[in-house]
């Protein structure tokens, strides 16, 4: 059963099993199942973190999330979809990472490392999107990103962020409207240097 995630990537693509069935198999000891889950969610999870942290930290946090699943497999209960479970863990780890970074910065004087833009093509439009998203409120931003990029349902977002369902809906609406205004307004077309990131963080 000692098969690596890489070996099972092709199998995962063709696997008819759902995420929840794979997780159940992994809980029973099948590391092949874990390999398939890893193959399915490696890139989405990396994207989740990459839109919220720099490349090095995104990789580290991706690893930590899968390790948390490995560590907590014995305590896993199939009460929700696997991806809700995965992103809920990822979100906790992201918050832990932010707390740790803030602690190091505030009390040890160690500032965050260089944060390169998530957009690799260097296009100004992409950079403006990122800056506009950063200007949204913390919760609004997270709701928007989870919906647009992770494609979670409203109910799943509510579980991940521990918010009421109606709050998720109203905040998503507000975030989309605000983002549209930010991108459409003349300020959105100003030089990148004039844009400042939101000081709010979840």
């Amino acid at each position, binding site marked *: 059963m000692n098969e*690596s995630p890489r070996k099972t990537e092709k199998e995962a693509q063709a696997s008819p099993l759902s995420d929840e069935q794979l997780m159940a198999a992994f809980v029973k000891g099948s590391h092949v199942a874990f390999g398939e889950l890893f193959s399915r969610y490696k890139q989405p999870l990396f994207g989740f973190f990459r839109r919220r942290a720099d490349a090095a930290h995104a990789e580290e946090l991706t690893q930590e999330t899968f390790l948390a699943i*490995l560590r907590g497999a014995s305590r896993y209960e199939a009460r929700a979809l696997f991806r809700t479970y995965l992103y809920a863990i990822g979100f906790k780890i992201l918050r*832990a990472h932010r707390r740790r970074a803030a602690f190091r910065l505030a009390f040890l004087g160690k500032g965050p490392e260089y944060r390169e833009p998530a957009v690799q093509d260097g296009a100004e439009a992409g950079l403006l999107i990122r800056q506009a998203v950063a200007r949204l409120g913390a919760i609004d931003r997270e709701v928007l990103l989870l*919906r647009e990029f992770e494609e979670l349902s409203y109910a799943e977002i509510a579980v991940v962020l521990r918010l009421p369902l109606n709050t998720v*809906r109203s905040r998503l609406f507000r975030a*989309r409207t605000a983002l549209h205004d930010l991108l459409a307004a003349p300020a959105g077309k100003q030089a990148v240097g004039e844009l400042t990131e939101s000081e709010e963080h979840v």
Partner: protein
Amino acid sequence: MNTSAHPVAPEEVMALLDEELSIAEAEAISEHVKRCSECAGLAEQFHGTSATLSRWSVPIAARMVEDTVEELTGKESSGGKIGKANIFIRTSFWSWKQWTVWIGATTVGLTVLFAAAGSFYVAHKPRSVHSVTVAGRAGASQSEIDAYGTVGKLETGHNLISGQAESPMFNTSTGFGVGTGSRDGTGPAPPVAGKVDSLVSGQAPMIARTMTLTVATKDFAASRTLLEAILARRHGYAAQMSVNTPENAQRSLQASLRFPAAELAPAVADLKALGRVENETQLGEEVTQQHADLMARLKNSRETEHRLQAILAQRTGKMSDVLEVEQQIARVREEIERMEAEQKSLEHRVDFAAVNLQLKEEYKAQLVPPAVSVTTQMHNAIVAGLQNVSEMVLAIVLFFFEEGPTMVFLLAIFLPPLWFVWTRYRRAMATV
């Protein structure tokens, strides 16, 4: 969009695009969007925002992530242990129960730490301050204070001394009053002055007697009067007494009595006659050896004092030697006084037996008509309730007046650094 006049909320249009509506709802709103240009425009706006966002791409995850997870998975599957996550991640997964336990444990730990520090401080406080204070309060001599050693014991001694002073049988000339009765309480005993020598020589054992008696009586008032009579007749006294006489409830009396050892047996017989004996325990502690040792040490100390005084009288040495001898004499004198006080206490315990009496009334509940009308009782209850509220408010106000300055002072000390740390942390959170 005017939502008050519009039949479909903009959020519903958004939910339609996100496929978050039921089939029926989706059909209805979809039909509306087809007819309503305003909603169609809104839907177009959402589409446009999503399309814009989709231009925010991220690169492919590095191979390193895969390798690391693969390696750790292999390690885990082969029975190895994966290292622990850092403390920030671990605490992220804590439940409220774990937080409660952690905070509770920390609070208890700090409390214990402070309590230990407080005890340490009290234990290492100079004793002389206590002694002087208590001596002034109790009117006891320094030797008596030293004999008891601690404040708590001295309080007991104080009660004893007070009780003796109040007792008609307390004889100040002999120190502890009645000197009659044998050690075992069966026959006449020599006077106190003569006891010590005879006991040191081992003629009779010295026994400190303690007795506990619980008696239930039908006539509480009569029994109490009888108790006073027994004390007078048997030359005893009450070292401590408390009487509870609640209305329409059982009355009781608790007393710590002292009787001359010789009178103990008849006194106990008298006490038992007060009513039905519910409980009786006796304890006899032999202190003969303890007394003999004490007397021997006392004798030695006295001889030492005599020898030192003789040396001092000669004055043949240097001034420093003379001073040293004087210091030694002072030390020995202090020891002698302490042992003399101990001796008196020990002998008193032997001479006077302690009887802890609990007298209870055999109470029969009776139906007593209320003394006042229901209306009056309700009025009184309301008045009492209002009074309680006003007293509570007053107590709170007084508390803040009394403790407020201290709290303000502590806040002034601790709040700025805590505030500084918190704002610094929040600022750092905003930048990461």
